[in-house]
C-alpha cells in the first residue's frame, strides 16, 4: 500500500543557486501526482529531494521537511533506507549492462545481500508482470543482458527493478520522454494500474500525459510551485495566469 508524502517549506540549493524556494505540497497516497513546468524550473530537483538523491551531488543541500507517512525523510532514516522505500525511475532507461534481465530486476535485493533463490524467482516474476514485461522476456531471463532490449522494454525493465524492492512511493522523472508513442501508452497504462498499490509522483514535459495519468498536478516555475490542484481544474480553468500561459503554450 502506498503512503502519502507531505512537503513543508522545502528549499534546495546547488552551491549558491537557490533552486527550490519554499515548496509546500501534499501528495496523497495511492494517487498519481504530476509535476509540470518549463525546463529548469526545479521539478526534477524537487523529486530528487524526496528520495534524497540530490545528496549524491556534493554541492547540493536542502532544508525543510519531507514526511512520508509518519516518518521524516531527512531526520528519521538514512538515505539508503529511504531509497528502498521511495523508488525512482529515470528519464533515460538505465539497466545495468553487464547483468542479465533476471539479475537486473533482482539487483535491488541481491546488492543488499538478499540471496534466497526461490524468493528471488518469485519477486522477479511478480515485478516483471507488474511492469507488463513478463510475457515478452520470460524465456530470456538469464540469457539476455538488460541492455539488449528495446528502449521501451528497457524502461519497463527499470520499472520492474524499482518495483522489486517493494517501495511505497514511486518517483518517475519523465519516464516516457525518450520513448515512442506505443511504449509511452504502455507505460501510462502501467502507471494507472500501479496507483492502487503505490503512490506515484511523475515529472513530465508532456501535459497531455499529466492529464491522462494524474489526479493532481503541480505547476513549477523558477523554483517555486505556482499552483497545485486537481488535474482537470489545472487544465480547464487554472487560477494563476502564469499556469494558464504555460499550458496554452504562450511561453515555455
Amino acid at each position, binding site marked *: 500500500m502506498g503512503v502519502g508524502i507531505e512537503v513543508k517549506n522545502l528549499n534546495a540549493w546547488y552551491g549558491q543557486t537557490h533552486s527550490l524556494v519554499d515548496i509546500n505540497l501534499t501528495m496523497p497516497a495511492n494517487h498519481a501526482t504530476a509535476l509540470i513546468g518549463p525546463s529548469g524550473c526545479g521539478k526534477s530537483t524537487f523529486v530528487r529531494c524526496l528520495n534524497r538523491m540530490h545528496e549524491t551531488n556534493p554541492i547540493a543541500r536542502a532544508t525543510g521537511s519531507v514526511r512520508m507517512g509518519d516518518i521524516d525523510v531527512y531526520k528519521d532514516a538514512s538515505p539508503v533506507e*529511504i531509497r528502498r522505500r521511495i523508488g525512482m525511475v529515470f528519464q533515460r532507461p538505465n539497466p*545495468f549492462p*553487464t547483468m542479465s534481465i533476471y539479475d537486473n530486476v533482482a539487483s*535491488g535485493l541481491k546488492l*543488499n545481500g538478499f540471496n534466497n533463490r526461490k524468493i528471488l524467482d518469485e519477486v522477479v516474476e511478480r515485478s516483471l508482470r507488474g511492469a507488463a514485461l513478463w510475457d515478452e522476456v520470460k524465456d530470456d531471463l538469464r540469457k539476455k543482458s538488460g541492455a539488449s532490449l528495446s528502449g521501451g522494454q528497457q524502461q519497463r525493465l527499470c520499472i520492474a527493478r524499482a518495483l522489486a524492492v517493494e517501495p511505497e512511493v514511486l518517483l518517475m522523472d519523465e519516464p516516457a520522454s525518450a520513448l515512442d508513442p506505443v511504449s509511452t501508452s504502455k507505460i501510462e497504462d502501467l502507471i494507472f494500474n500501479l496507483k492502487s498499490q503505490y503512490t506515484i509522483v511523475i515529472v513530465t514535459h508532456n501535459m497531455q500525459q499529466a492529464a491522462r495519468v494524474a489526479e493532481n498536478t503541480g505547476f513549477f516555475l523558477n523554483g517555486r510551485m505556482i499552483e497545485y490542484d486537481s488535474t482537470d481544474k489545472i487544465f480547464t480553468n487554472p487560477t494563476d495566469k502564469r499556469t494558464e500561459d504555460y499550458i496554452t503554450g504562450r511561453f515555455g
Partner: protein
Amino acid sequence: MSEDFKGGRLNSIVRTVENHFVTGLAVLSTVLVVAPLVAVFSYLLYKGASSLNWAFFTKLPVPVGETGGGMANSIIGSAVVLGLGSLLGIPVGIAAGVYLAEFGRGRVLANMVRFTADVLNGVPSIVMGISVYALIVLREKHFSAYAGGAALGIMMVPTITRTTEEMLLTVPHNIREAALGLGVPNWRAVCSVMLRTASPGIITGCMLAFARVAGETAPLLFTAFGNEFWPTGLNQPIAALPLQIYTYAISPYDDQHRLAWAGALVLIVLIMVSVTLVRYVTSRGVLKGAS
C-alpha cells in the same frame, strides 16, 4: 553549367586519389609498426626454437661444458615473482583508481595521488630495483623473492591506477544513479556495479601492467637476484627468466647463448599465453548483447 559539371568531375577524381593515398599511408604505418614485432619474433623463433627441448622446461641450469641443462627454475621463479607482484600491484592499483574516480574528484589528495602515480611511472626500472634493495634487501640482509615481487608490484601500480580511473570514468553516470536509487549503499554501488561494468577495461589495464613487468630485468637484479637451484622459500633469492637470459647472454659461452635465445622466445610466448588465457576466462562470463 557545363563548367560546374567539369569542376565536379575534377573534384571527385581528386577526392578519390586523396582517399587512396591516405589509405595507403595508413596501411604503410600499420606495416611499419607491426614489422619490428614480427621481425623480432621471427628472429627469436629462428635462433631459439632449435634449443627448445623437454630438458629446457624441466631441468636446472648446468655448469659450463655440460649439456642437458634447462631453465625450469627460472620459469617457476618468474611465475612466483610475477604472482607476488600482481598480488601487491593489482589490488593497490585498482583501489587507487577507484578512489581517484569515485571519491576524490577535485580533492587535493586525489591530485597528489595522480601526480605521484605519473611520477612513479617514469621512474627508471633500475632505480626501482635499487630503492627496493635499500628498503627491503638491506634491512632483511638477504635477497628474496618477495623483494622482487615488491619491486615489480610497485611498477605495476601506476598503469593499473590510471587505467582503472579512466575506465570507471567511462561508465555512464546514470548507472551509478540507478544503483543508488535502489537504496544500495555507495560503496556497494561502486564495487558491484561500477567496477563490474568497467571490468573489461580494467582487466586490460592489469594485463598491460603485467606484460610490461614480466620482462623487466633491472628491478630483479638487486632484489630477487637469481638462483641456480629450485626455489626454496619466498625469503630466499629466486631465479627469473629475464635474469637468467641476461646472465647467459653476457657470458662467453655459445651453449649459454643458445639457451638465452630459447629463454627469450619462451618468455614472450608465456606472456602472450597468459594474456590470452585471462581474456578467454573473463570473456566466458559475458552475456549476449552486453556491452
